[in-house]
């Protein structure tokens, strides 16, 4: 019933381990049918925990429609990359999978998948067909080690026959799997990223899926639009746009598909930020001559000023967990630094102790701030601008990017496990690309080609 397993403390990058004490643990599972007249189980552990090893089978085509093959290829690739990008699985390489493509629970031989070389703990499989101008897709998630009751998840999806629908089905199924196996945290496969697309002299707001697919324009204003911020309910997009009166906050309704009213004021208005309740908008406005943080409602009325120091105050961002705090960048002591305060302007606290800090983003659980920081700014000690994450309670920070050129505009994913940011390897603004990484700085990859800037991850 029990078995021994040797593990040793693994030295993680950037961290010093606590003494090289290797530990040896016994892992033992036992069941009790009733405990305190309740259902329960007994478990024993542990450590040296590995991630769940998941195998994703190619889905079985069940129709002879000529489109099936190409849509199924899109579906398979999307599902695989969604699970690989989730950051919580060990995914089995497709070359190690068994040759069979099971289409239904009756077809699958789980021992085959649980055995080496695939050694999967979980298997995702299913069938994909086009029936009467609809995609009909059945997806299953099976526990490869529990032969008696293997089924964890069974889903059926029906949608129109398009490339985009096939991708969306894969995203939805991937999110279901992530929800079950991650311990209740929602997946991000259905989320969007809004960003600035540099096209010649103009900058327009664009949208893409979280994996960089489906890039398309939202605005066609023919001017310079900056810092898109999506509303918490995905209904509106606030951004700052250069018009007749200088930079003003503009509002685009994604439901109506057109611009909606937002009162313009004097001065330069930049970097809007949505409150998590979706009713307030904070932004930087220089209507009094000095850039300060203002909060208005979603129509631009009921404006109130919450900072009043000399020196620029820009880039506000609400605490998404509570909505009662704002982090922002202030130049009141010279170089721009990161600060936090309550939404009424009280309890101001400085977070960075030097350098040149810009573009904060608050993590969804309220625990961290991601921001761009040049720790050795100025002549004599030049440094590069990189992405950092700071734990607010302790003000301890870690550096996520290093020596890859100028990095800016970090934005957290809604699950708090990913960060999207803009990076330019050679320092030229026109070569800015959007990248994504896990929140510990691993698994970096580019989402766009040159000309993508200022990404903002949707709230859900």
């Amino acid at each position: 019933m029990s078995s021994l397993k040797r593990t040793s403390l693994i030295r993680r990058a950037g961290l010093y381990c606590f003494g090289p004490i290797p530990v040896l643990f016994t892992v033992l599972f036992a069941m009790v049918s009733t405990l305190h007249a309740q259902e329960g189980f007994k478990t024993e552990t542990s450590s040296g925990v590995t991630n769940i090893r998941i195998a994703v089978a190619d889905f079985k085509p069940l129709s002879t429609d000529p489109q099936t093959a190409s849509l199924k290829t899109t579906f398979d690739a999307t599902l695989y990359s969604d699970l690989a990008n989730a950051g919580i699985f060990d995914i089995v390489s497709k070359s190690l999978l068994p040759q069979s493509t099971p289409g239904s629970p009756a077809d699958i031989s789980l021992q085959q998948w649980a055995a080496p070389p695939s050694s999967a703990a979980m298997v995702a499989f299913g069938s994909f067909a086009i029936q009467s101008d609809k995609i009909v897709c059945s997806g299953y998630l099976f526990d490869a080690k529990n032969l008696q009751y293997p089924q964890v998840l069974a889903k059926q999806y029906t949608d129109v026959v398009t490339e985009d629908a096939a991708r969306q089905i894969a995203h939805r199924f991937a999110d279901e799997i992530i929800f079950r196996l991650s311990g209740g945290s929602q997946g991000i496969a259905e989320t969007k990223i809004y960003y600035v697309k540099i096209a010649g002299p103009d900058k327009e707001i664009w949208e893409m899926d979280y994996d960089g697919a489906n890039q398309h324009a939202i605005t066609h204003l023919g001017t310079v639009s900056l810092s898109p911020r999506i509303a918490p309910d995905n209904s509106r997009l606030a951004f700052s746009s250069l018009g007749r009166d200088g930079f003003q906050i503009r509002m685009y309704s994604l439901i109506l598909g057109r611009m909606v009213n937002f009162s313009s004021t004097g001065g330069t208005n930049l970097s809007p930020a949505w409150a998590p309740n979706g009713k307030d908008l904070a932004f930087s406005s220089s209507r009094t001559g000095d850039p300060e943080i203002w909060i208005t409602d979603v129509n631009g009325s009921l404006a109130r000023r919450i900072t009043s120091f000399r020196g620029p105050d820009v880039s506000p961002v609400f605490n998404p967990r509570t909505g009662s705090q704002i982090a922002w960048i202030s130049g009141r002591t010279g170089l721009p630094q990161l600060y936090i305060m309550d939404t009424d302007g009280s309890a101001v606290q400085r977070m960075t102790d030097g350098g040149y800090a810009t573009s904060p983003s608050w993590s969804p659980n309220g625990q961290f701030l991601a921001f761009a920081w040049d720790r050795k700014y100025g002549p004599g000690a030049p440094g590069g601008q990189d992405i950092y994450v700071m734990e607010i309670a302790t003000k301890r920070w870690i550096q996520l990017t290093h020596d890859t050129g100028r990095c800016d505009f970090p934005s957290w994913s809604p699950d708090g496990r990913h960060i999207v940011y803009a990076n330019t390897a050679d320092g030229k603004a026109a070569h800015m690309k959007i990248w994504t990484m896990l929140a510990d700085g691993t698994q970096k990859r580019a989402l766009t080609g040159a000309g993508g800037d200022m990404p903002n991850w949707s709230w859900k």
Partner: protein
Amino acid sequence: MVSSLPLPPTQRTLDTGVLTSEAPSPAPVISKERTEPPPSPKEIAIPEKITKPIKTADKPTPTPPKHVQPVTPPPTKAVTGETAGIRIAQATMELKNGTASVSVEDRTFGERFAYYVNIVNSKVAQNWYTAEADPKASLGKSTTIVFDINREGVPENVRVETRSGSPTLDLSAMRAVQRVDGFGPLPQGNRITVEYTFHLHPQ
């Protein structure tokens, strides 16, 4: 601090050490373009005399005699205890399922939703910082923690069932459970009780 990011770590440690390099990224270097001076006539090397390489005959490798590979019979017993932590748990459960004493009618939560037990197992294990337990007093000891999981998957009523005799080990085990935000909604039922035993073994 990395360990408090919501990503699965391999083994958590107390991270009071140095977190990152003190050296920030270097500033981008912009070097001026320089014109290469023309080569002086002496710099052009006089070509060496071409000599033919010595050829050596290939040695023929003898072909190994063909043997008939012995066919190993498939194992008649369930394979256990040869894989990583997560598999052991499941293999153990397979063993349990395989015994004749467990009938289908008498199924329990752990057998039906083995994947959920595994999530509980790995989530708590990920959050157990073994460095919190004093190694002198705790090595070789084990403590049992009992807690309930409610409908939303949140652990409640965490208490020590069996003390190990090392207060730091008991506390580290308690904290491991308390650190978990949730295991995901229960697949069945409103509440289950979990008994979790932590061992700290010397090597």
